[in-house]
């Protein structure tokens, strides 16, 4: 009798060895901790922005007038829509609607690319008009130079996060197509979506700081 029980335990242990180690809660907590460290990274820049704005209030208001509010607001809606589709792709995976999930995830990636294209066009336009630190157009205008330094650093760092997020989402799309992400094992996609939502939240705060500052 005791031998039989012992055999059962061994066979259970063996079957456990074949299962890859998974820790749903651990993965989620790890991702959230990483996102909070990102909050601190951008938090430092927000503090810097606030202090410079207190020092150069009129220049920051003037700098806001050089921004294209329409593109800023349009890009916000592009990112919000991307967050909406990636959130729904998780529901689609959990409901075993694989094709819908692939479509929704692809939409998010395309919207991320659209955001970056618009952002780069905007940057190109600013540089064309001499709106960058140490340009001849801004010579002697210390406050505006500080405003545009903050603008390029903060939107640039955010842009890098968008590119990183798109790369992760492309990997998730491939995993989804290959059947590595299923209703039972969807934590990778959930964590990738969490990252994308954080990128969205940062932009929510960047919009009023730069585009609606005037």
């Amino acid at each position, binding site marked *: 009798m005791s031998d039989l029980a012992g055999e059962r335990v061994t066979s259970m242990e063996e079957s456990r060895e074949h299962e890859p180690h998974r820790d*749903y809660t651990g993965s989620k907590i790890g991702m959230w901790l990483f996102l*909070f460290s990102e909050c601190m990274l951008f938090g430092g820049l927000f503090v810097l922005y606030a202090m410079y704005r207190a020092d150069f209030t009129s220049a920051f208001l003037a700098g806001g007038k050089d921004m294209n509010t329409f593109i800023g607001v349009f890009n916000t*809606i592009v990112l919000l829509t991307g967050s*909406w589709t990636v959130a*729904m792709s998780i*529901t689609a995976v959990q409901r075993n609607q694989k094709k819908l999930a692939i479509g929704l995830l692809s939409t998010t990636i395309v919207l991320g690319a659209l955001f970056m294209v618009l952002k780069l066009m905007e940057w190109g336009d600013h540089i064309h008009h001499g709106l960058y630190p140490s340009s001849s157009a801004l010579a002697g205008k210390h406050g505006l130079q500080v405003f545009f330094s903050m603008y390029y650093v903060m939107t640039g760092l955010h842009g890098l996060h968008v590119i990183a997020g798109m790369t992760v989402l492309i990997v998730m799309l491939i995993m989804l197509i290959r059947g590595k992400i299923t209703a*039972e094992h969807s934590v990778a996609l959930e964590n990738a979506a969490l990252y994308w*939502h954080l990128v*969205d939240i940062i932009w929510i705060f960047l919009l009023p700081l730069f585009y*609606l500052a005037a």
Partner: protein
Amino acid sequence: MEREAAGLEEDVHVVSYMTYTLVWGALVILTLLLSAVSVFHLKELPFLTPSLAAFIISPIKAALVVFYFMHLKYEKNNIYKIMLMVTLSILIIFLGLTWIDVALR
């Protein structure tokens, strides 16, 4: 092990498409409202300055994303909410102390 994994997945709340769509609609409306306040400087509402609107509307938008899109509302484990409170507290101390330094210089 499989049963354990399946059990964990059963605990995960599946959010409906409708909930996500309503939240997305609210986010778009709040964005347009914030932009309208800033661009047109609504003269009928002199107390609602663009800065005040940004201070009120942006955190509401962020909260909608965190609670619904990021599933925080549906997480049964309170550790996520506690971690968020700690992060927000540190950020507020960070911002607040720097502000006091500049304001009382």
